């Protein structure tokens, strides 16, 4: 059937568009429950200390205060991987760690009451650097993790979760190499993804073991499961998703504030809302992982990689949320970009006395690659290889294998991305602009123009399980039951389009239930670019099953076999004789609905792909770097919605992506342990005035394993960016730069234009 799609591939308005532009969309801060209290958190001023004494008496006696909780008052609720972080502890481990919780009639009363809690600390020495943290006499954050090193295993990824990359014989590989590059490279500026909406939650109890939570994670079902586990499997959670004001992965880090609300609500016996201030969002929520690699790459002169070895040190901050998972996926992803038979890459997860790192778009892969690619490009430079040609030769192709997060060897059955790389390079003018390593594309007075490139991909488009129902009503409408909140990708609308296409109903006739874990089957959520492929496939299967049931009901009335029927705009008809038709309501009756169920099983055989080509202009007098031109290149099989897709592609600049190589960083003062730039003036972000030209090249080579031949790419758009920027700056100024972000001060230092290293 070669009938053109009616909805797929066309730009259609977001289902929630009117709500968003009229201000009717309800975010967590907009929701009020009757008798709701407001919760606030007292936070540690010290990076590492024991609480010797805590006296909350004055706070408890304040007018309007309804609950005050310290570590002495709370149950053994724990999070982290493995579970190691108490919800409130006797020990604080970073500046901003939670010390006490207050619920009061107003936010102001709660804030004021925090001053009424007297805490006596026993200060402990703190450590911020991964190497120093592993030294014998280093301060120890957790007694159960000597040397501050956490185990690498991620139990959620199965019994053999990927803990390192070990294959072949690296010694032999290095012997075969003509070129060796070796050194230490790091991506440790811990940028903050910093969604527009600060995180928050409301908790309300219905009896001692039933908790209802309102919060903004994009995956309410799974978050509900995780909360159940963190509360010791004793409390059943109903998680209601609100509009999500941006996630980029980070909304999966709200468990602490949700449980603060739950504890306070339990103590006060009233609903409690906890919304973080922007300062808390900056200083006590979720940063990117710190990543440092000491590694060695062996390469033959023509560009074949023969061996890669090294140690990858991951700074997870004061605890690991799921850093082990990021380690596993990062190790998988680097194999997709670099074909090498001999590997010995040993990761280590280290905790230090700063705010936690957590899930962020790029999920370990961006962090590993941002440290590893500068090393790899040293080898490319020695071999005088064009990096685009290198990536074309190395990126995973159908038939190639890789160890994925579960520790199993998977063989790619996706598409060959060589053409996407070629088309991207062509659109960018790579051949004309690439002048060789450390050579500027152009010199224009003090302005040096240089180009760089990065690639990234992820086989997680098919990760984990999704389940969904699709219900058909006699009014020729369909309802999708799938537990995901809209977090900005337009995924809910895109899924409606898929169902509209299958049922051939107008898009207005398709709706999706509000995200509520009570009403839905299992759904792990939209991340890892799995929305189109994994969630989509579950919903498509549910729609197909419902349609099959519809045809089975209608077949006798149309004197046909079910497989000979079609449906369009609420009519069911015979394919060969379309005039023989009945409306859905005649086939179904007015008192019947039909329900289809769909399930997606994990499949790691289809990696996606993203290439970013960047052009920068460096002013060698001031050190200022301007990002002038960006081309993104990918192949998505089939575009579902071109505007939603473009939004995701443009997103590569934000959410601690490309700009984490230019100006984004969290500045940690190692004397006090404080983050210094925790406001939106001192933390630099890209404004409307500084937009580079941005072109997107999107190929559509059909992926045979999806109903619409499509896969998603949203999660991977940021990751190729940071190392590409370093490459472009290096080429522009003719000297290697290694640090993130490359601020003017650092550029001038590299150029020797500072006195005694001071700009």
């Amino acid at each position, binding site marked *: 059937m070669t009938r053109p799609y009616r909805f797929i591939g066309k*730009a259609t*308005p*977001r289902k*929630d*568009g*009117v709500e*968003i*532009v*009229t*201000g*009717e*969309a*309800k*975010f967590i*801060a*907009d929701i009020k429950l009757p008798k709701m209290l407001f919760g606030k958190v007292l936070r540690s001023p010290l990076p590492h200390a024991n609480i010797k004494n805590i006296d909350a008496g004055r706070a408890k006696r304040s007018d309007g205060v309804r609950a005050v909780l310290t570590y002495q008052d709370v149950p053994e609720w724990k999070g982290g991987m493995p579970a190691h972080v108490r919800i409130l502890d006797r020990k604080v481990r970073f500046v901003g760690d939670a010390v006490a919780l207050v619920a009061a009639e*107003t936010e*102001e009363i709660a*804030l*004021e009451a925090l001053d009424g809690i007297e805490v006596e600390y026993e200060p402990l020495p703190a450590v911020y650097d991964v190497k120093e943290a592993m030294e014998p006499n280093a301060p120890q954050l957790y007694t159960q993790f000597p040397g501050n090193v956490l185990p690498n295993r991620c139990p959620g990824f199965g019994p053999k979760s990927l803990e390192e990359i070990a294959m072949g014989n690296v010694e032999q590989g290095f012997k075969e190499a003509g070129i060796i590059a070796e050194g230490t490279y790091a991506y440790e500026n811990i940028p903050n*993804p*910093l*969604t*527009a*909406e*600060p995180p928050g939650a409301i908790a309300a109890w219905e009896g001692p073991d039933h908790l209802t939570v309102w919060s903004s994670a994009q995956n309410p079902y799974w978050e509900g499961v995780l909360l159940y586990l963190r509360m010791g499997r004793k409390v059943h959670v109903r998680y209601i998703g609100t*509009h*999500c*004001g*941006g996630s*980029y992965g980070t909304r999966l880090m709200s468990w602490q504030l949700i449980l603060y609300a739950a504890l306070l609500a339990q103590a006060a016996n009233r609903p409690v809302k906890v919304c973080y*201030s*922007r300062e808390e969002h900056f200083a006590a929520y979720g940063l990117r992982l710190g990543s440092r690699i000491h590694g060695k790459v062996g390469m033959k002169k023509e560009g074949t990689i023969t061996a890669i070895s090294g140690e990858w040190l991951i700074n997870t901050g004061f605890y690991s949320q799921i850093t082990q998972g990021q380690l596993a996926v990062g190790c998988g992803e680097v194999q997709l970009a670099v074909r090498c038979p001999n590997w010995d890459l040993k990761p280590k997860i280290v905790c230090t006395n700063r705010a936690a790192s957590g899930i962020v778009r790029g999920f370990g892969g961006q962090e590993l690659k941002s440290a590893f690619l500068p090393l790899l490009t040293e080898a490319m430079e020695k071999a005088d290889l064009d990096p685009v040609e290198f990536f074309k030769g190395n990126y995973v192709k159908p038939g190639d294998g890789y160890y994925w997060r579960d520790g199993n060897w998977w063989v790619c059955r996706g598409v060959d991305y060589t053409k996407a790389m070629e088309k991207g390079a062509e659109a960018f003018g790579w051949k004309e602009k690439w002048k060789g390593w450390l050579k500027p594309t152009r010199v224009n007075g003090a302005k040096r123009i240089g180009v760089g490139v990065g690639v990234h991909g992820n086989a997680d488009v098919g990760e984990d399980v999704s389940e969904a129902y699709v219900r058909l009503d006699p009014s020729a409408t369909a309802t999708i039951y799938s537990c995901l909140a*809209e*977090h*900005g*990708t*337009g995924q809910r609308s895109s899924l409606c389009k898929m169902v509209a296409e299958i049922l051939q109903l107008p898009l207005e006739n398709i709706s999706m239930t509000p995200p509520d874990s009570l009403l839905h089957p299992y759904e792990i959520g939209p991340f890892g670019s799995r929305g189109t492929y994994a969630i989509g496939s579950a919903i498509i299967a549910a729609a197909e099953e419902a349609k099959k049931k519809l045809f089975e009901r209608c077949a006798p009335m149309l004197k046909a076999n079910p497989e000979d029927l079609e449906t369009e705009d609420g009519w069911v008809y015979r394919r060969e004789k379309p005039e023989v038709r009945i409306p859905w309501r005649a086939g179904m009756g007015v008192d019947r609905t039909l329900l289809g169920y769909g399930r997606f099983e994990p499949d790691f055989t289809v990696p996606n792909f993203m290439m970013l080509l960047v052009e920068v202009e460096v002013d060698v007098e001031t050190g200022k770097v301007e990002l002038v031109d960006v081309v993104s290149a990918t192949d998505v099989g089939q575009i579902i*919605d071109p*505007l*939603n897709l*473009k*939004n*995701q592609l*443009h*997103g*590569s*600049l*934000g*959410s601690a992506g490309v700009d984490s190589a230019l100006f984004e960083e969290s500045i940690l003062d190692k004397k006090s342990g404080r983050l210094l730039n925790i*406001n*939106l*003036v001192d933390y630099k*972000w*890209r*404004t*409307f*005035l500084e*937009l580079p030209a*941005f072109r997107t090249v999107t190929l559509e080579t059909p992926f045979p394993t999806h109903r619409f031949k499509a896969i998603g790419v949203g999660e991977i758009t940021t990751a190729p960016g940071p190392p590409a920027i370093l490459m472009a700056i290096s080429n522009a100024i003719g000297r290697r730069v290694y640090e993130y972000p490359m601020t003017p001060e650092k550029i001038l230092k590299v150029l020797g234009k500072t006195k005694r290293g001071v700009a």
Partner: protein
Amino acid sequence: MKTRQIAKRKFKKLAAIGGSSLGLATLSLRQPSKAARDNERHRINLMVNGQPYQLEIGNQSGEIGPSDTLAYTLRETLGLTGTKIGCDHGACGACTVLVDGKAILSCMVLTIETDGRSITTVEGLRDPNTGRLDPLQQAFIDHTAFQCGFCTPGILMSAKALLAENPSPTEQEVKEGLSGNYCRCISHYHVLDAVRAVIRQRGVKNDPAV
């Protein structure tokens, strides 16, 4: 009163940090004599989205505290939660509303300073009689000029003020007009497409040749 005083202290501190060099108009603190008289009566008058409000100044629920920001009053007292508070420091633009047609950061203005003013929030953009969306709102939908949508009300109000002041701004002027609005998803490109479309539409309508 105590809690109010604290909030005011906090507000002043934040105002000092925040600054307002974000391309948005600031309010002058003139005191119309009628407003001064009303102040004596501990009451202020606001026109919000065409609806008049007379609000008591005080500490009770539904009253305006002397230290209440306009953003707080709009959201918590009047229930107009379309206006977002992203930073409460005047740095992200999410709380942008129009006061007498000019874009201001409602988290940086005390409600009592806006006595006698006319305020438009995102809820007031739509035609109150027909329910028809403002051309900017429609263009934002047509161009999917948002992702998560949290910053959208602020961006819409900045764009609205810009087009009111300058009906045919250049590309650079549009970028300047929106440069105080934080968007983390990077919907900037589609926002510019949407604003451009509205400018073009108007140009056609106002062109005497058409």
